[in-house]
């Protein structure tokens, strides 16, 4: 780094720097908005307010046939038929304007054709919620859930809070999205608690599945194409459809702000498109408020864990098909533990946006609303806030903590030193108290040992405990059919890489479930460590490093700039309490490490796969010759290849670095830091290095990586031996 100034300065392009400056200035304002919006909840969350809704007095048949008198979202809202909704969209002034004035005259397309097309779009999109189907489906779901889950636990306090805040305004449910099961769970919960069933925005992928599309439609899903680029008609139809649902306020609307299922179990950076469309009726004064309810759905074990693992490594996901679904039904033979659902404090959009609303009301309603820069900033805040709320209200399973410990062990200890149950319990206990001090609610109902054993039992396909108490990772990849290299999305990884990679990535899936808790403390403690190594330890110096890492990882974690300072201060306090940082300081401007070096090591280690992946991405990009460009896919492929080499030569031992999601985030992050330049040529996105800046970033990332690289290195072969190979794996 030397004479180049603070890392954050180096790493940023001027434009981004300005943006960030703006965001930083906005930070106190955001705090202000949030204070008005969300009173902090009364007390700490406790498991006792969660109730298992599968555990009910009436039998399933009685339950699904109960009288349906749901709590209305808005009083006097009348339920419309599908045809009526379609009619409302078609006859809306905005739609009329779009077709009559804009599209038809601009593109010289006959109006009739456009109207026909619109009708087709709407038929393709529309939901057809019908109670008999919902009931029947609810019955089947009950049976399935009873079989595979030991309970669906809903925070009843949060249900009461939700009930109290609906009745006047349209409601948007924004659940976290980790699994296909999310789609059905919300409706199931609403049915159970007699709340109007949500209408759910779903991706078009399901429509092609015979029977399933229909079934989802009937249970209230409407379908949006994954990408529709510049198709103005589609865009207009889709936004009008969403907006008519909002303004009529008959059902809650449910969509996933993360846009898609997170394969990594980390929250994805929120997508703003659908949210902006849904907020438009508020911004243009068509509704007085919208209630946004972030919802966390925490799974002990994700149904798609193996699939995700393959997918992240580049083995293509099977196309959604009904036969695929039936094949996946052998999922039903396994146990998936508990689900925890928590509806977080409802957010009043009016309180969030109130001061921004109104000046452009001189425009008639049929003209499209242009989102102002202020509104757009606020929408980004809201989206980030929603995701953070989802994270804060997660219920962390003990297995996730165990996964952290096991990963740490596998990476740092020599191969003959196996982890035994006793050690695991002890380390999980200490990690649990650390997590709890970061505000986590840990699913530990019994004494720790019993609960941990239960948690491990759920994951017996991934982790086994031998009779003598040794804890080992299983090789789940063994029985997988050989992968056709041509179909690989990224670099075609060797079989032996996959064999270790798949279980390690699966394990990381559960590590990731905890990362929202640990990420800031981890970044801070790594920053402190490096700052001290460089002989400084001054708070400002640490903060600069923290800022760099935060910026670097902002596509990986929910690290919105507005929370930067607050998170920093909080992390320092928490780390001091935990003894990771020295508390007894005379100089308040200087930070030093505390006695709890084990936890410090664990925290820093959590960053390893990310830093390793990012570092490789840097190297790959810097090898692109000046004046040449690469596509994203090429960049990913060669980075994966580079990483595989490192893994084979034991210079790296964390397979999660191979994750395509991680590497994509790395490229995006480098782009927004100005180290890589994104060009659009003939509609293709291509990347080229910005040599000077890239060199600086590479250097800094490399320095950090040095610090977290494990003390004891094992080659991939050695690591493979840690895994028990299984003759027959289930998936």
């Amino acid at each position, binding site marked *: 780094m030397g004479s180049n100034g603070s890392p954050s300065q180096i790493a940023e392009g001027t434009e981004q720097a300005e943006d960030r400056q703006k965001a930083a200035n906005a930070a106190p304002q955001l705090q202000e908005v949030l204070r008005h919006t969300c009173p902090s909840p009364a007390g700490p969350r406790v498991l006792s307010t969660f109730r298992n809704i599968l555990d009910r007095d009436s039998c399933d048949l009685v339950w699904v046939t109960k009288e349906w008198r749901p709590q209305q979202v*808005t*009083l006097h809202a009348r339920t419309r038929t599908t045809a009526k909704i379609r009619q409302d969209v078609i006859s809306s*002034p905005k739609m009329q304007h779009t077709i009559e004035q804009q599209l038809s005259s601009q593109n010289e397309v006959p109006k009739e054709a456009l109207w026909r097309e619109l009708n087709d779009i709407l038929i393709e999109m529309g939901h057809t919620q019908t109670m008999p189907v919902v009931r029947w489906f609810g019955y089947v779901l009950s049976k399935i859930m009873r079989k595979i889950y030991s309970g669906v636990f809903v925070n009843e306090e949060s249900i009461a809070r939700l009930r109290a805040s609906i*009745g*006047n*305004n349209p409601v948007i449910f924004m659940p976290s999205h980790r699994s296909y099961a999310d789609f059905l769970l919300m409706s199931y919960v609403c049915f159970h608690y007699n709340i109007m069933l949500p209408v759910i925005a779903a991706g078009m992928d399901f429509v092609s599945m015979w029977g399933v599309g229909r079934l989802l439609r009937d249970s209230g899903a409407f379908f949006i194409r994954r990408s529709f680029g510049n198709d103005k008609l589609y865009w207009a139809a889709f936004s009008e459809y969403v907006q008519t649902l909002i*303004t009529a306020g008959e059902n809650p609307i449910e969509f996933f702000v993360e846009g898609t299922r997170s394969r990594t179990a980390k929250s994805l950076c929120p997508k703003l498109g659908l949210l902006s469309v849904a907020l438009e009726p508020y911004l243009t*004064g*068509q*509704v*007085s*408020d919208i209630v946004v309810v972030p919802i966390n759905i925490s799974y002990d074990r994700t149904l798609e864990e193996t699939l995700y693992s393959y997918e992240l490594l580049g083995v293509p996901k099977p196309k959604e098909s009904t036969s695929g679904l039936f094949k996946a039904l052998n999922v039903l033979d396994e146990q998936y533990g508990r689900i925890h659902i928590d509806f977080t404090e409802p957010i009043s959009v009016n309180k969030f946006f*109130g001061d921004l*609303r*109104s*000046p452009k*009301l001189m425009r*008639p*309603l*049929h003209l499209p609303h242009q989102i102002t820069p202020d509104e757009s900033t606020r929408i980004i805040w809201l989206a980030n806030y929603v995701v953070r709320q989802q994270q804060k209200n997660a219920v962390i399973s003990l297995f996730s903590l165990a996964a952290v410990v096991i990963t740490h062990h596998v990476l740092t200890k020599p191969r003959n030193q196996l982890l035994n149950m006793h050690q695991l319990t002890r380390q999980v206990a200490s990690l649990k108290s650390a997590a709890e001090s970061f505000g986590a609610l840990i699913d530990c109902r019994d004494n720790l040992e019993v609960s941990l054993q239960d948690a491990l039992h759920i994951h017996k396909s991934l982790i086994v405990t031998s009779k003598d108490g040794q804890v080992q990772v299983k090789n789940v990849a063994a029985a997988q059919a050989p992968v056709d290299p041509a179909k690989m999305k990224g670099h075609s990884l060797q079989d032996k890489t996959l064999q270790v990679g798949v279980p390690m990535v699966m394990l990381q899936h559960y590590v990731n479930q905890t990362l929202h808790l640990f990420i800031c403390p981890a970044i801070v403690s790594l920053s402190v460590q490096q700052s001290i190594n460089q002989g400084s330890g001054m708070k400002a110096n640490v903060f600069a490093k923290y800022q760099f890492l935060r910026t670097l990882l902002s596509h990986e974690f929910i690290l919105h700039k507005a929370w930067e300072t607050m998170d920093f201060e909080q992390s320092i306090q928490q780390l001091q309490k935990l003894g990771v940082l020295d508390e007894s300081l005379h100089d308040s401007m200087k930070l030093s490490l505390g006695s709890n070096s084990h936890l410090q090591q664990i925290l820093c280690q959590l960053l390893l796969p990310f830093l390793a992946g990012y570092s490789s991405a840097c190297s790959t990009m810097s090898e692109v010759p000046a004046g040449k460009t690469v596509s994203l896919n090429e960049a990913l492929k060669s980075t994966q290849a580079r990483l595989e080499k490192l893994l084979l030569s034991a210079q790296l031992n964390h397979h999660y670095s191979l994750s395509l999601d991680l590497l994509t985030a790395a490229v995006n992050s480098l782009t927004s830091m100005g180290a890589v330049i994104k060009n659009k040529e003939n509609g293709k996105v291509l990347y080229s290095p910005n040599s000077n800046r890239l060199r600086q970033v590479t250097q800094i990332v490399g320095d950090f990586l040095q610090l977290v690289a494990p003390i004891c290195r094992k080659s991939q072969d050695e690591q493979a031996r840690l895994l028990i190979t299984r003759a027959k794996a289930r998936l």
Partner: protein
Amino acid sequence: MGTAESTVRDDDNRLFRGHSHILDDITHLRSKKIGKIERVADVVIWPGCHGDVVGISTTEHSVLKRYQFDFCSICDPNKLRMIARRLTTANENNRKSSGSIPLKRQELLKWHGWGYKDTKVIVTQRGKLFITSNRYPLVKISQVSLKVREWIQQVWGIDLYEVENIPEPPENPDISNFPDPFLESEFLDGLLTLQIVYSTDGEDRFFRSHGQAMSDIMNARRYQIARLPDLVVWPNSHEDVVKIVDLSNKCNIVIIPFGGGTNVTSAVTCNPNEIRMIVSLDTSQMNQILWLDKRNLTVCVQSGITGRDLEEQLFREGFTTGHDPDSLEFSSVGGWVSTRASGMKKNRYGNIEDLVVHIRFVTAVGVLEKESRGPRISCGIDFNQIILGSEGTLGVITEVCLKVRPLPQLQVYASFVFPDFETGVKFTHDVAMKNIQPASLRLMDNMQFRMGLIMKEEQTFIGEIVDKLKLTALRAIANINEDEMSFAVAVFEGFKDEVAINKVKIEKLVVKYGGVSAGAKNGERGYLLTSTIGYMRDICLNLGMLSDSFETSVPWDRVLQLCKNVKSVVAEESKEKGLKHLSVCCRVTQVYDTGACVYFYFAFNAAGVADALRVYEQIESRARDEAIACGGNISHHHGVGQKRRKWVPRQISPTAVGLYSAIKKTLDPNNVFAVQNIVLPAEITSSKL
């Protein structure tokens, strides 16, 4: 009164300078607090518009009569009394027609609420409502039906069958509550010289310290008015006003013009921090029609004439202005102009800005008026527009020339029901699109319609059955449900054939929107109810319900959303504030080509609510925020006053605020008209224009 022994202190010069004291004492006498009285006389001096005229009060009813009188002679109390006796018997037919609003308003009007003293709504046993006067051609006794009772109990938490003997404020205010006036002797001397009647009586001042907003009335009932005017002055003519304004400008006195006192925007509220003497300039005695020009269809009136007086006199001549605000009986022409008022029948006759031909406006730097009686003028900026809506902050309107129309050949009421509010609004929108507005068209939402049912005549057994049959028929044939339907009322005016054609067109459209005609009688009732809404508000207050209305205007594409959103915000906010029993309803009261005027009525049961008035204001403020956010205006016709100033800069742009400030500084350099309406004082000071 004649029996009262006057103990006049001769050494107190002010007695003879200030007639006010005389008036004071009349009040004192009446309230039988003679012990307190130091100065008593029984004469009221009253200059008229044709030279020096004095009125004398001789009876306990204080009937004021006016006579020619030599002013100087009042210096001697004995002589005064003698003159008084002589004058009492003199004839009185040489006088101009007197207005319906007396000098002492309190003799005719309530101090604690809306309207005439003799008119009250009384609830007697088992939900019988009883109106105490014949002023309103409504049913005198009405019976709250069981169904309505149940519903009211549900929304308001009040059982109308169990509310006998509702506590009511005393008939007269407690005079011990009024602070002493601050008087500038130079100004009093000046008034004496000018021979203009004034009063410093507490009750007079109190009566003019507030308007008719619910908050005003609540504050008045609790005597929580921070500052009363120090003096009330009754000019009789334009010339009087010019003199008073000159004098005030010279003496550094504040004038607050006061017309009918029916404002609902706190537009006459005195600034509690004002250190100067405040004069309330009551125009009620400027109540003459100066001339009527039947060929040019114009009438010229003094600004203090009330709508009712004007219309009655025009009626006798076969004319009407057609301006018909709900406050017609009390509000004055000057008040209409200064607040940009709107009349019910504006579709046919226009709003006040369409009716005004000429205005005389007395400002601190001179009289502002156009030298034009022609139908229209293109002569640069129309400065009438500065007067319209000036809300007493720039000067006093003294004379107004208005358009008149011959009385219509026919006036027909009609009413319609629609399946719900939405279809009703669509119907009114279509009426506007087709430009077939009747003279007036109003649409009530379901709740407002049901509120109207409280005042319904007692049902005979047969009538009840007929009603039930009607409802069943509605449900069966027109698919109209009692709990959802909206109710529209209309007035048609004009020549017979004109009305017939218009009616047919409207009825066709009603059918198109699934509506059904509900007869002329219901239509008429709908309009009559409007004029008693002030009385209903008061009975609500007595029952412990805080209730008031607010209005806005909004383009057609946002009418429904605005109604829905404002109601939803009120409900939400009420929930947040822990209110249990409340009602919010609305109606579309004016139908324009480009949009509509929407009225909201919000009421809640204040029992157990701490600081209920503030809660009300907070909710109303939030509702107005929402109305504005939904594309509504700050006000359609009530004006800004001091209640709605905070929304003004955003509504008219900061440049316009600067422009207003510049006008204010130019026309009123000494800030004589210091009633702080329209724009916050700080914004005037800070304006750079």
